């Protein structure tokens, strides 16, 4: 199989584009796709301070690598979830990546800094493990970005992630979630701008990029994720894609162009400050504080004795370790 660009020997095939590339051309094309995504959705400016949410997996490390290679000011944020050896290894590869590139890495640990870990939250709380993990990440990333003065949060969501999420939201007609599913969500009301620069690239492409760039990433799946709904939706999408290459891209990219504007008009969610921590929420307390209260046995229902307590909590400095790079 020949490379479409240089006619050398191909190492990666991208079936939905009916194309194949050698190592050098694939890395080039991958970065061009990221640049195109950034430009198309006005994701980041060259002088923005970007906080990259890094898990130690292929997507987030590939994203961090591309942003650094493109010359962006991109620091990493690693959140320790307390999932045994899996979290230990994830933290190690992330720290090694940051050290190897002289990049700034902020490390936050749920147990140390918030008093619970994800396995415990999955057992004791009312939400699924994956749900509480997802909301904890969104909460911590936003708070860390606000407190660190970052302009934008970048996550490694790829085309497969987005297509599977859209499928799930569509099957349940969760129109509010559909309206907010976008590669770039502007910041507002205490929410830092969020972008997904890999949304045009498949999971196979991000894995190939990480491999070809020599990035040591955690290949193993999270031990708590087996059988989750996201994986089922991915299986369904992959079954269709195998017979009709390009379906995932048509589904998600077509939604962004022609479907999402219809749902955005109907999304009227108002945000206000959580009474516990001050972070934005549609209710009285944010989902993170409600989940955490359940796990650590705190009562949130009683009125706060003094609003000053709430603002103190909101202002408390988030514990974090800084690894390498300039703060």
């Amino acid at each position, binding site marked *: 199989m020949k490379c479409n660009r240089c006619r050398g020997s*191909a*190492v990666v*095939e991208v*079936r939905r584009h009916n194309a194949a590339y050698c190592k050098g051309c694939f890395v080039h094309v991958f970065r061009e796709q990221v640049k195109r995504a950034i430009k198309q959705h006005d994701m980041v400016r060259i002088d923005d301070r970007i906080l990259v949410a890094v898990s130690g*997996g292929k997507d987030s490390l590939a994203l961090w690598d591309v942003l650094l290679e493109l010359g962006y000011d991109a620091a990493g944020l690693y959140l320790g979830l307390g999932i045994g050896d899996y979290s230990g290894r994830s933290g190690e590869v992330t720290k090694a990546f940051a050290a190897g590139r002289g990049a700034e890495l902020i490390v936050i640990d749920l147990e140390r800094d918030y008093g619970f870990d994800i396995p415990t939250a999955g057992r004791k709380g009312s939400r699924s493990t994956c749900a509480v*993990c997802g909301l904890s990440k969104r909460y911590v990333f936003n708070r860390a970005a606000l407190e660190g003065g970052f302009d934008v949060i970048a996550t490694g969501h790829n085309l497969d992630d987005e297509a599977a999420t859209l499928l799930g939201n569509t099957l349940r007609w969760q129109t509010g979630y559909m309206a907010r599913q976008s590669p770039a969500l502007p910041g507002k009301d205490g929410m830092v701008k969020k972008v997904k620069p890999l949304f045009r690239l498949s999971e196979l492409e991000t894995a190939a990029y990480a491999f070809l760039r020599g990035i040591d990433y955690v290949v193993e*799946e999270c031990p708590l994720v087996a059988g989750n709904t996201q994986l089922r939706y991915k299986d369904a999408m*992959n079954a269709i894609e195998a017979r009709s290459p390009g379906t995932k891209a048509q589904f998600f990219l077509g939604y962004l162009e022609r479907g999402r504007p219809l749902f955005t008009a109907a999304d009227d969610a108002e945000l206000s400050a959580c009474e516990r921590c001050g972070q934005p929420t549609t209710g009285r307390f944010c989902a993170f504080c409600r989940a955490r209260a359940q796990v650590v046995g705190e009562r949130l229902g009683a009125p706060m004795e003094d609003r000053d307590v709430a603002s103190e909590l909101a202002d408390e400095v988030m514990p974090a370790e800084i690894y390498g790079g300039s703060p």
Partner: protein
Amino acid sequence: MGGRPVRSVLDELGMDPDTVLVIRAGELVTRETRLEEADEIEVRPVISGGVG
């Protein structure tokens, strides 16, 4: 041309080529690459179930 294409090996294993990297001697190979009897390959899944 000798050997057996990667595609055929993945078919036998019931694996979708879009969901795995196939690595031989530290290099990525495509579905059309032919494997010899003595070749050892790593079939590395690319699917992750997290949402961020």
